């Protein structure tokens, strides 16, 4: 699967060595620009309209227009104060958007951080040690990973239901349960990805540290992890975004509105309510999307490399 990456890496110098061609004339490339512009319009279409709706005074989806007809920040203030006023009836709706945002950050942040640690530990063992069952272990990881956690939601729901009856902190509607369940999927593709990167870190570094008297743990934390920062960032971000988007398991475990993550909360908020809540929803969506999208764009180059080696983002 890594053939794209390898081939790309191998071919790049050849591209550079070729004499730089003259900038093509607009007469030859106009149609390329036309395609590019049309594609950009389609790509930005929903982004533009959601931004417009977020600043528009009309809360209904029917009020959405190319530019806000009545510019306002009301939608944002409603969302940030956790109450949305229904435009037609005037009744107040409880919408703990900040709560959902915080829940999502806690769950996705904790899951991503721990995923990085757990899969790095395992990847280090697979990369540096030669032990019985190593090959089997890696194969088993791949096989188990083919049964995605998504498909196991019924079993996970029942397990959490039962553990909750004995250990309250591990029951339905708890963040510990949700994060720990997500960690079940920590190994797998991530471990393979990291192992590939660890293999490229010269073993001489480990050995020189060992000569200096370092234990395996010290080599891992002090030498390998700092050098593996790029792949740690990629795995962290991929698992953060995956967790941020995850709905099925979160909806099976989280039962009350105040425990919802963003996908649960936002979907429940806008479901069948496009006529009344579109404005505040747009504001919330914008606030939620911008940080995630910015982070993603910043690390985009690494992610494409990582994804072509195995994972696929939704």
């Amino acid at each position, binding site marked *: 699967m890594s053939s*794209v990456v390898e081939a790309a890496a191998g071919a790049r110098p050849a591209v550079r060595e070729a004499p730089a061609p003259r900038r093509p004339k607009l007469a030859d490339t106009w149609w390329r620009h036309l395609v590019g512009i049309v594609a950009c319009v389609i790509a930005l279409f929903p982004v533009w309209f959601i931004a417009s709706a977020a600043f528009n005074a009309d809360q209904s989806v029917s009020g959405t227009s190319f530019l806000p007809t009545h510019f306002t920040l009301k939608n944002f203030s409603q969302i940030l104060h956790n109450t949305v006023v229904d435009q037609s009836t005037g009744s107040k709706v409880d919408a703990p958007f900040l709560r959902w945002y915080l829940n999502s950050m806690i769950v996705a942040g904790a899951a991503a951080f721990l995923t990085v*640690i757990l899969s790095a530990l395992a990847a280090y063992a697979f990369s540096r040690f030669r032990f019985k069952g190593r090959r089997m272990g890696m194969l088993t990881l791949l096989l188990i990973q083919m049964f995605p956690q998504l498909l*196991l939601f019924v079993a996970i729901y029942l397990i959490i239901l039962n553990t909750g009856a004995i250990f309250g902190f591990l029951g339905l509607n708890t963040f510990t349960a949700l994060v720990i369940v997500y960690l079940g999927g920590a190994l797998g593709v991530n471990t393979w990805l990291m192992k590939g990167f660890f293999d490229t870190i010269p073993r001489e570094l480990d050995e020189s540290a060992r000569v200096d008297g370092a234990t395996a743990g010290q080599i891992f934390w002090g030498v390998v992890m700092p050098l593996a920062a790029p792949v740690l960032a990629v795995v962290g971000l991929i698992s953060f975004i995956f967790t941020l988007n995850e709905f099925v398991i979160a909806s099976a475990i989280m039962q009350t509105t105040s425990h919802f993550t963003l996908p649960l909360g936002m*979907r429940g908020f806008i479901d069948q309510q496009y006529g009344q809540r579109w404005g505040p929803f747009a504001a919330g969506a914008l606030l*939620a999307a911008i940080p995630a999208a910015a982070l993603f764009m910043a690390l985009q180059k690494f992610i494409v490399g990582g994804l072509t080696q195995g994972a696929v983002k939704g």
Partner: protein
Amino acid sequence: MSATSATPAVAQVEIPRPALIPRVLSAFSGTPGVVAKIVLLGILNAFAFWAMYVLLTRSHWVSVVVLALATAGIDLVYLAPTRKTLPLKFLIPGTIFLVGFQVIPIFYTVKVALSNYSTGHVITKHDAIQQIKINSLQPPPNGRSYTMTVARTSSGELVLLLQDQTSKKFYVGTTKALTPLAPSTVTSGPLGITAAKGYTVVKGAELFALDKTLQNFIVPVGKAGIRPQTISTAVELEPTLRYDAKRGVFIRLSDGAVFADNGKGAFAHGADELEPGWTTGVGAANFKRIAKDPLVRQPFLRVLIWTITFAALSVAISFAAGLFLAITLDKRGMRFQRVYRTILVIPWAIPGFLALLVWAGLFNDKFGVINRMFHIGIPWLFDANWAKVTCILVNAWMSTPYFFLVSMGALQAIPDELTEAGRVDGGTPFQLFRRVTFPLLLVAVAPLLIASFAFNFNNFNAIYFLTAGGPPQANSSIAGSTDILISYTYKLAFAAGKGQDLALASAFSIIIFAIVALISAIAFSRTRALEELA
């Protein structure tokens, strides 16, 4: 300066490291590292002992043994003075979670799929028998009814103060017996007893909080019992069924009909089943239902076909669009390339669930921007066929950037010499693309296409956030027009109103797994990923 240039490349990596390593080692070496290890292990052990204690008090013997063995094993690995356990030290943390929330759920899914776990079959047989006994209590034709006041004795025991509505006599009922109350100790109004000597009447919020307790509060009278009906009335009830513990059957008292365990988790007399049932293994019954029962098979086949169509078309369209954009915009020296590239990645960078919810609003048939902007009235989400088109289009919108980037990388990786040679041989640009570029590109991208297909096969969000599987089908099946297998499974498990069928949902999960595993097997045989195992 000259030393650096004498050892190029290697020097760049190695020279700073000796400085870093001793620093890190001094920070971690010796005591702090050992202390951290001991403290962490100590916390783990303390926690495990507490958990074992809790499990012991509830007689979960198997869990206690498993937990004890696991804890002992972990201690051994981290404390044993041998290098042999070194790999395990690194593998154990992740493996614990993998086993707990990936491997065990797989086995549990199989177990549930082979059971009848569904609404009406969620408790054990023992609990079901108790529940049936309570359910079988019915008011007899001339049964007495009482006004009821809930009260507590001086010791706090809950009692019912009752007044027979026909004889107007007073009684006090406990869970053990019904005893008469002397009228002189009782103050009563039209709604029954308001006060009684030696008892404190329960009122207000406390009374409502007792609702659950009262539902199971039975005052035994002869072979019948008195049970609260509302918070202020009670009725005399008689059992309609008798449980024969020896034969393990219920016998209906009115006609002597025998309700025996039917092997499917219920007591049945012919087709007549007593509720509730209990959870029991039913073998491959769920899979047989999927294969044979037309009520299950027809939606399943329809959904399966749509799932494959959805996944295949999503991949095909987004790959075609991404490749087209890559070819068009990857012209050396073209202006604004970076701008296009940056903007075109945006759909992929936005969290998917938000993009889907936004598209659902824009495609709204009455108010949606798309219909208003183009002055059309297409029911994008509310017509079975249009909804399918919308799902594929939106999903393609989301994943085109991925294939755009991938195709761009793959195109740049194809050596210029090959196309150059083709051009010298007189090939037209189209011929060159078809005969040289595209086959090479496909070799590189094929595994990603298959992986993407497998992903979209289970792309729950793409369906659930856009159409929620709707519009509904005319035959009122749970599966809507755009439901894919995973969203159908989700609805089977958690659908409101129609009852949960967790067993059938688990059987679906296993079938989805089989299909996806088949696809993945193809993917792996193609990618030769396994050969990289050194």
